[in-house]
């Protein structure tokens, strides 16, 4: 037990914590630790904690409960998730003309604080008392212009006796929050407008610290997929948004987060068996073969259709396919100048996203992955189970001309039995004649699939030559690339035994985009 300020013990703190939790339907959150206590220093994971400052403990039980309530509502309502926090950060950055990340973080914190406390205040009289306790404590201190404007706005918004403000910004803030705080779809626009209004005011104590989120609390903010955010922004804007949240958003994360919502469903080979289950009445409309005569006669001496006639319901179950070796994957990615670079909507974007997904999928299936990024130079990662190393190669954009590295492809292919070779290029290949023999040999050893972007502007001779190697897909729309890569991955990683319906030419595309969280 740790001795604490104001005669508080850890037990007392935890009692208040449990009271707060019970007021908010007992959310699954970690117990708080006191700043500077042994628990705080000794706990191995930095993030997974709610830390209470000892200064807060001096202010009484109700104040501590208010503090806990405030934190809990942050984690269960606003911003709750890292994705929401990211959307608010993105909006705050847009609202600030200077793009200052510290200021943007302050705006997000201020906005979420106001939303949380307005939400609490509206809930009950008890909550109102606690909320006002916190703000009145703050109002006793010397306030900066920004804090004054916020407190003045809250005085008007809530109709309470907090100090009014003569800043015109207070009135403008009031206009933002008078539309209500519960509608999440309004939050980004509200925070953007708030950032525009408060950008020039000197900050104070309000809005400092990191942006709360459940992922941040659980310590997995660095790996939480922010697919919606990544899809809506270019890499640089994405990096800036994440840096507002105190996270690194490099190019690899940008692609990884986007690829998270793309689903590859390998159609596994399954053995199906049928077995009898419950009893049901046999009627005239049922096939005679289904009538269970022996059983029906065991229940009644005569067979009266629909009355004393019974049949067995049949159920079927699928059995998982047996394990077998999966082919390793070699991704050969064109990163020449004609691919356009890492921006949304370019050939590089579509190709790299498809390559990321295919690599992650193959890796998940247990395959080893190798990658080559080429222009007239090349970056190569040999066979490995280290997905990060592969991703490092895939995000290279080398620029310049298109020289396919035939010898390197062959060197990688010969060391693995029948690997899958995914080659994504816009087929303006300038050294195909020199490298032809190597590529032909590699294609004979593995399964070569070429995705030729820019199908409308294709080089007929190159296409024809490459067509002899294996499957060649000419792609006119970049969306088609992703679907085709997924289809190829699905085919390659499902059971090696041919599926009957596949022989009939039925499509197995089962890719889909899930909604972002």
């Amino acid at each position, binding site marked *: 037990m740790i001795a604490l300020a104001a005669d508080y013990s850890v037990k007392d703190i935890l009692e208040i914590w449990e009271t707060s939790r019970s007021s908010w339907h007992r959310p699954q959150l970690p117990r708080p630790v006191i700043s500077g206590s042994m628990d705080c220093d000794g706990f191995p994971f930095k993030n997974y904690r709610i830390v209470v400052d000892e200064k807060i403990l001096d202010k009484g039980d109700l104040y501590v409960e208010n503090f806990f309530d405030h934190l809990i509502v942050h984690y269960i309502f606003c911003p709750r998730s890292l994705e929401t926090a990211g959307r608010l950060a993105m909006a705050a950055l847009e609202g600030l003309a200077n793009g200052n990340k510290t200021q943007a973080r302050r705006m997000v914190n201020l906005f979420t604080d106001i939303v949380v406390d307005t939400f609490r205040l*509206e809930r*009950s009289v008890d909550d109102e008392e606690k909320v006002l306790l916190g703000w009145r404590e703050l109002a006793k201190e010397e306030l900066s212009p920004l804090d004054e404007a916020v407190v003045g706005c809250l005085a008007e918004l809530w109709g309470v006796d907090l100090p009014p403000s003569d800043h*015109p910004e207070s009135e*403008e803030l009031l206009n*933002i929050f*008078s*539309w*209500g705080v519960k509608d999440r779809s309004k939050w980004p626009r*509200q925070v953007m407008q708030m950032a525009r209004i408060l950008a020039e005011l000197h900050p104070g104590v309000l809005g400092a610290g990191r942006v709360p989120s459940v992922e941040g609390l659980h310590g997995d903010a660095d790996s939480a997929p922010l697919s919606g955010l990544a899809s809506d922004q270019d890499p640089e804007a994405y990096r800036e948004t994440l840096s507002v949240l105190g996270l690194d958003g490099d190019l690899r994360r940008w692609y990884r987060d986007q690829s998270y919502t793309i689903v590859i469903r390998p159609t596994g080979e399954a053995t199906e068996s049928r077995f009898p289950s419950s009893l049901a009445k046999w009627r005239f409309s049922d096939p005679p073969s289904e009538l269970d005569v022996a059983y029906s006669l065991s229940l009644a001496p005569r067979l009266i259709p629909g009355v004393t006639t019974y049949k067995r319901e049949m159920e079927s179950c699928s059995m998982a396919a047996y394990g077998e070796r999966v082919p390793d994957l070699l991704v050969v990615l064109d990163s020449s100048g004609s691919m356009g670079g890492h921006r949304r909507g370019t050939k590089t974007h579509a190709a790299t996203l498809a390559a990321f997904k295919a690599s992650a999928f193959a890796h998940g299936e247990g395959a080893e992955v190798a990658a080559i990024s080429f222009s007239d130079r090349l970056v190569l990662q040999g066979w490995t189970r280290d997905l990060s190393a592969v991703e490092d190669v895939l995000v290279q954009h080398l620029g310049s001309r298109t020289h396919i590295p035939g010898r390197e492809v062959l060197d990688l292919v010969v060391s693995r039995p029948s690997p899958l070779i995914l080659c994504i290029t816009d087929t303006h290949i300038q050294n195909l004649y020199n490298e032809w023999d190597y590529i032909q040999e590699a294609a004979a050893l593995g399964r070569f699939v070429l995705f030729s972007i820019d199908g409308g502007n294709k080089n007929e001779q190159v296409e024809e030559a490459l067509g002899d190697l294996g499957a060649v897909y000419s792609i006119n729309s970049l969306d088609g690339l992703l679907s085709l890569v997924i289809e190829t991955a699905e085919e390659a990683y499902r059971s090696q035994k041919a599926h009957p319906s596949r022989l009939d030419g039925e499509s197995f595309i089962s890719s889909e985009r899930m909604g972002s969280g």
Partner: protein
Amino acid sequence: MSLSGFMGEAYAGKVRGEKRLEEKGGEFLLGFEDLAKRLEERPKRAEVEALAPRNGETILSLVHSASPKGRREGMIWGILTSLAAERLPSPLVIQPQDYAGLELHGGTIILDAKASPPWLNGRGSDGSGKVMGSWKRAHHLGERISGGRLVVRGGAGDYLGHEMRGGGIVAASCGDYAFRNMRGGWGVVRGDAGNYLAVGNSGGKVAVKGRAGARAGWLMRSGRIRVGRDAGEYLGLMMSGGEISLLGKAGARAGWRMRGGLIEAEGYGPEAGDDSVGGRLLCKGYP
């Protein structure tokens, strides 16, 4: 126990019976920037109209609070001024700014340097450094208007009344390309007009009390231009219809390659009517 009774018991004392805070209703709009953010790169009047508030006073407060940046926001602001003028019972008096009165259909807009937002009560500055009373020569005023009046109490910049189809514009003076591609309505310039006045017009009337610059009435097909003093060179260049009337003299090459229409002036510079295949050049005082 009914569900409401059960919920009431479970949340007894934890929730309010009545709403504590009032919330605004209607179309959710947080200001000019918020409106602009929701519009496309080339905003159309119908799109702005769909998102803008219905009430003229509310639009007016948006107009006053806005600091449009760039062409796109300028156009949105201009359409808002038109919507406000159409919905307000009295004329809209605002500071001159680019695109004011864009696509105006009715009502009256007065551009006055001394105009100030209502909340300033006639004070000299709006707190953002914008000083009231100093005249700014704004461009694209009254573009594509089809009705109503635009009064510019000062000099207008370029493209005044560009592509107007109806209504009327009055300005103290104007820059280049005023009343270009005009199809209807009227324009009055109480001082001098810049170059390229009423280029490509197919209707409407333009009156300039002072001088007109070079190439007035270039490619004119129909409509009328009246100039109180002299005009620059190439007056009525390649015009095929309409009337141009000068109380002063025309510069060199008036009516050059003219195919139709009429030019009337006190006198002409050298090479007047060269290469013309139609139309008439009249000299006042001579039959």
